[in-house]
């Protein structure tokens, strides 16, 4: 039977579930209302090893496999999707590229504190005019004494204002197009990195997303990640992992919507019986569950392949496309089942409906995922 988890994977999942249910879930609604970043929770997640899960212990991580990480992320998202996205960014696009492309010295200096939770990390690729079309980025890195100076604007930066180190892509050679982009580890604790006000988002309210202005932001010689011109290779190297991570986040949200809906269908009485006894509600629940189970298998399969070091670009894109689109639909049905109450802040599904919406957009839109899948089919 698939999936069959190892004892380690089950242990990690259960530890994540315990912590998420006891410590993350209770404050989720309040953080959604206030927009307050869950600082204390990240402190604890870091101490427990959840911020650098697949990073080897020698570099401050927990040294578990990729599927374990995905299982943990799903449990955290079930409790609070805002916490899950910050955790995912730290693991997938801050730690992972430094682990893959960093020198030994960079791993000691930057990866260790990111993986053991001392500081948080982020990723700066997207710009106001370069989203899905990442190669169009305009941020310039110019040579100066002892390193580079970065100038430009970055948009939709998760963990902006709360993270210390950002894997940042900038153009080192304006004439070389895609090949003229390089990756850097940018220390945000300098005046040249100006964080904007957090965006007023529809959901994921307690995750901080900001516009960043880089004004002569300095990057020392030894903080370039990979070789000059390797920028997109570094940026896209973690893409599959990032996509599976967001699929797992959507899966956690959808499972929560499912559980909330089943509980409500048993408790809410209409026409003299629980609404779960009405055939139309049963149709919704059955369809939601079918899509949820299918999505779960896709996510776990892609994660297993990734963990085994196999190519999984199509599997990751498929998992992200199907899971996030299904999760949006499942949360929509969950609101419908809750009727008027589903439209009220009093009920969890209202938050889930807003939180889940972005999953078909960020970390590669559904349209990009379809493109990736179709290209492979037509190759």
């Amino acid at each position, binding site marked *: 039977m698939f999936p069959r988890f190892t004892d*380690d994977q089950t*242990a990690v999942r259960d*530890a994540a579930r*315990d*912590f998420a249910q006891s410590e993350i879930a209770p404050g989720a609604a309040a953080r959604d209302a206030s927009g307050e970043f869950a600082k204390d929770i990240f402190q604890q997640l870091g101490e*427990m090893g*959840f911020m650098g899960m697949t990073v080897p*212990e020698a570099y401050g991580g927990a*040294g*578990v496999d990729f599927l374990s990480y995905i299982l943990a992320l799903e449990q955290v998202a079930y409790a609070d999707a805002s916490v899950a996205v910050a955790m995912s960014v730290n693991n997938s696009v801050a730690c992972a590229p430094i682990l893959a492309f960093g020198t030994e010295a960079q791993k000691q200096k930057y990866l260790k504190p990111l993986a053991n939770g001392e500081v948080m990390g982020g990723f700066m690729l997207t710009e106001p005019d370069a989203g899905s079309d990442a190669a169009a980025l305009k941020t310039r890195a110019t040579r100066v004494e002892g390193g580079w100076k970065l100038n430009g604007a970055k948009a939709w930066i998760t963990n902006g204002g709360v993270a210390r180190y950002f894997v940042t892509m900038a153009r080192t050679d304006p004439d070389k197009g895609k090949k003229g982009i390089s990756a850097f580890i940018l220390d945000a604790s300098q005046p040249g990195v100006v964080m904007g006000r957090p965006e007023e988002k529809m959901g994921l309210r307690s995750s901080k997303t900001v516009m960043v202005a880089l004004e002569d932001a300095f990057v020392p010689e030894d903080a370039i990640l990979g070789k000059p011109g390797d920028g997109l290779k570094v940026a896209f190297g973690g893409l599959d992992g990032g996509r599976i991570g967001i699929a797992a986040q959507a899966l956690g949200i959808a499972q929560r919507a499912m559980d909330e809906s089943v509980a409500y269908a048993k408790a809410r009485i209409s026409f003299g019986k629980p609404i779960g006894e009405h055939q139309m509600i049963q149709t919704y629940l059955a369809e939601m569950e079918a899509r949820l189970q299918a999505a779960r298998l896709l996510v776990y399969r892609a994660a297993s392949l990734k963990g085994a070091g196999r190519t999984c670009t199509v599997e990751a894109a498929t998992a992200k496309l199907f899971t996030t689109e299904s999760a949006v639909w499942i949360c929509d049905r969950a609101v419908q089942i809750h009727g008027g109450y589903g439209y009220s802040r009093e009920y969890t599904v209202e938050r889930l409906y807003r939180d889940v919406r972005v999953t078909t957009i960020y970390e590669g839109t559904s349209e990009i995922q379809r493109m990736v899948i179709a290209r492979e089919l037509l190759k």
Partner: protein
Amino acid sequence: MKILVALKQVPDTETKIKVAADGKSLDPADVKWITSPYDEYALEEAIRIKEGKGAEVMALSVGGDTAKDVLKNALALGADSAVLLKGDGQGDAFAVAQMIAAYAKDKGFDLILCGNKGLGGDNAAMGPMLAELLGVAQANVVVKLELGEGTFKAEREIEGGSEVVEGALPAVITAQKGLNEPRYASLKGIMAAKKKTIEELDAAAVTAGAQVSALALPPERPAGRLLQGDAPAQAQALLQALKDEAKVF
């Protein structure tokens, strides 16, 4: 310094308790087992002592195979070793105290920590009995513990106040909520725990001090009653009921 922490496996508070067919024990089906929360304070205190002044911490539980989960968790949290005494106390604190005493008596433990009571059973008897059997000092329902050179100072909850007791080690200390805030196991701890083995021994044969003769769930609550009529009539009916039936006036 050698510390023994005795941990009991109890049903999760959210478990729906059912009485087994014999009418005097729990039906173990569908029970989710956890470490008794009071024992978690005991374990956390032991780990803090280990981190503070250095100590060797051994976790111990009496029970069957399922009690291993409690020990695995203790290893993940930082216990150095774990022992399972295979046996069944049959719900009798004295039997369990004798089993633990038989194991611990020659091992040179400086400190034995456990919860002040096991969640659910609520006997609050095993710890004090263990201290008596071993002939060592004890302090119960402890909310603050300080260790000196071969001595302890414990603040314990008493009815309407607190009491500070001092004594010489070895001693049995039973933990109360407030002693500390137990941590969660780290992933590193969980992985490391899987490499450690749990020693399994047969518990000493003991004679129980008491036997459970019957176990019953509380009677089901009768349905509520809706008072009829307008507000003054309802108030009148309520007053009447409180006087005549509930006899609160």
